């Protein structure tokens, strides 16, 4: 039993089911990120944890106490909203202590909690201002401060950074991470930004169309995505997914890939269990950083395969150069070192790190290896 338990939770609006059998166990001190595209049900799930939306079926328990039907203010949670939702008529200080006041905390204690949190977030000089007199980043901090003074069991964040500009977003992301490392409070955090999900979380739940597609650590999600959806959603540029056929050569399974020039390419699998798929079609997933120039190949890999192919487009991006090529009828992106000698239209010997390759069942799109 976890600290926050979401057991077989579903949500329907009338006849429309927007969440299907969600099952997540969150340990104390964890930073769980719910990530997925718009409309996949992230906010709905968060609001159900908060008690702002009813639960159609299933249970949500916090610290072992089932909270279905418990009023939001009695769940000992605090929430940071996407729009910050600061009370416009109150000063920053009043905004932050309103919750404590409503819970009947004596004034002296409120003042102390306020001072502590204000110091933590470095907003001591803003306490007498109204929200209208703050910058976006400051508002964001106040919204977090309002949650922090409560010292709740669980923090809920609904896309707290989505309204900030790119630079501020990165800064606040680091601050949230630091804050979590300092306070060790359990956090459930909603975002549709996969980079935020990777950098902040201890675990990620990737959601799509009301289903949790995969629940795991950022590493697991990145290296062993449960299905094609997760594989292509996480990572930028997205993982290359191309059709291939499993063929045995010298008793070892290979991925045979059709190329427009007629000469099929063979990439040796690192996973022996792919032999079971001999003669069958699969979807092969290779991340752009696993296709490099030979000098840039991962030295720790046990299985670097050389692949000669014609370069399509090159896109220098500062630190790296991205190269597009045709493989298996798809445009495949490869990541070269910035000074790799690549010219559009030329034949080039790529190095493919097959240790990092993933295979999917083309029917179900679920992962079959590794």
């Amino acid at each position, binding site marked *: 039993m976890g600290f926050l338990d979401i057991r077989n939770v579903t949500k329907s609006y009338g006849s429309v089911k927007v969440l299907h059998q969600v099952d997540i166990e969150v340990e104390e001190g964890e930073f769980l990120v719910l990530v997925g595209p718009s409309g996949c049900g992230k906010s709905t799930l968060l609001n159900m944890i908060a008690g702002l939306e009813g639960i159609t079926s299933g249970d949500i328990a916090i610290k072992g106490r089932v909270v279905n039907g418990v009023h939001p203010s009695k769940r000992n949670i605090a*929430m940071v909203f996407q729009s910050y*939702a600061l009370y416009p008529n109150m000063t920053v200080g009043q905004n932050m202590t*309103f919750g404590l006041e*409503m819970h009947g905390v004596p004034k002296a204690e409120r003042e102390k909690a306020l001072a502590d949190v204000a110091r933590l977030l470095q907003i001591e000089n803003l306490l007498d201002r109204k929200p*209208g007199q*703050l910058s976006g980043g400051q*508002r964001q901090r106040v919204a977090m401060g309002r949650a922090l003074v409560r010292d709740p069991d669980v923090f809920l964040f609904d896309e707290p950074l989505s309204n900030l500009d790119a630079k501020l977003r990165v800064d606040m992301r680091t601050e949230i991470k630091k804050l979590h490392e300092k306070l060790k409070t359990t956090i459930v955090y909603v975002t549709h930004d996969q980079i935020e999900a990777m950098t902040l979380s201890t675990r990620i739940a990737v959601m799509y169309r009301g289903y949790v597609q995969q629940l795991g650590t950022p590493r697991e999600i990145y290296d062993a995505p449960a299905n094609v959806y997760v594989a292509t959603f996480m990572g930028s540029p997205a993982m290359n997914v191309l059709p291939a056929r499993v063929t045995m050569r010298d008793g070892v399974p290979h991925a045979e890939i059709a190329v427009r020039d007629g000469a099929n390419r063979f990439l040796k699998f690192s996973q022996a269990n792919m032999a079971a798929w001999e003669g069958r079609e699969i979807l092969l997933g290779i991340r752009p950083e696993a296709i490099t120039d030979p000098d840039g190949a991962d030295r720790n890999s046990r299985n670097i395969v050389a692949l000669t192919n014609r370069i399509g487009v090159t896109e220098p991006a500062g630190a790296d150069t991205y190269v597009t090529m045709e493989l298996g009828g798809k445009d495949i992106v490869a990541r070269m070192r910035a000074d790799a000698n690549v010219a559009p239209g030329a034949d080039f010997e790529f190095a493919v790190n097959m240790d990092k390759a993933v295979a999917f069942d083309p029917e179900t799109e679920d992962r079959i290896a590794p």
Partner: protein
Amino acid sequence: MAPAQQDTAVHTGRIARTFIYVVLLVFALFYLLPFFVMLVNSLKPLSEITDGNMMALPRAWTLEPWRQAWSSAQIGVQPTGLKPYFVNSLLMVVPAVAITTVLGALNGYVLTKWTFPGHRIIFGLLLFTCFIPFQIVLIPMATVLGKLGLAGSIPGLILVHCVYGIGFSTLYYRNYYAAFPTELVRAAMIDGAGFFRIFFRIMLPVSGPITVVSVIWLFTNIWNDFLFGASFGGQSQPMTVALNNLVQSSTGVKEYNVHFAGAILAALPTLVVYIVAGRYFVRGLMAGSVKG
């Protein structure tokens, strides 16, 4: 003055602008002229009016018509002046506006932030009251007031005006609160505030502009109402009915200067409400609560 002329996006020609101002000036004159006539004639002795020339300024300035209209003119059969009716109107309009505004605000709050199945139908029915002509309800209303024992009394008038006003005030507040971020209400719920605390601490403090609109509208309508006052006023008739009685009295000479003074007296409170309430018509109360 700004040191350099700002180059604005819209260039309105000098001629066009002059034309606009002239037209506006004509409109303003058109509306101000009757008021001017009322004012000057209320300040001169009757003889000056009957001599003709309504437009001229008084030769002998006097406040006597005002004093008469207020305290001694013949209203119906009693020489009471308009004073007691003015008081009646105040006793009617203040509670009616207050009750209607508060109920409208609560309705708007419930209909937007605490929605329940069928809330749209309820709102539709409330809106319907805005479109029912007064005349239709006269007889049923008289029956109800009679049954309640409120016929011919100020509380009866208050009730009638509340019933009629609530559709409008609900409409105003509902539309205003519909644009109020629901996340604020949710945040307050998590903070532990209940139904009324959220209303009084979060919603009401930012409802100034719409309250001004609602108060101006209700005050003007209720103060100026004649039909309900004449029908249900009984012994406690409002100002409008009294003014009518003053002006329409068939005995004696028509004292136009007193009539003008009485008419201005009757219009004064709504004028004051416009000027006073308009000052509180502040914008930007929601600044900074949610991202822009």
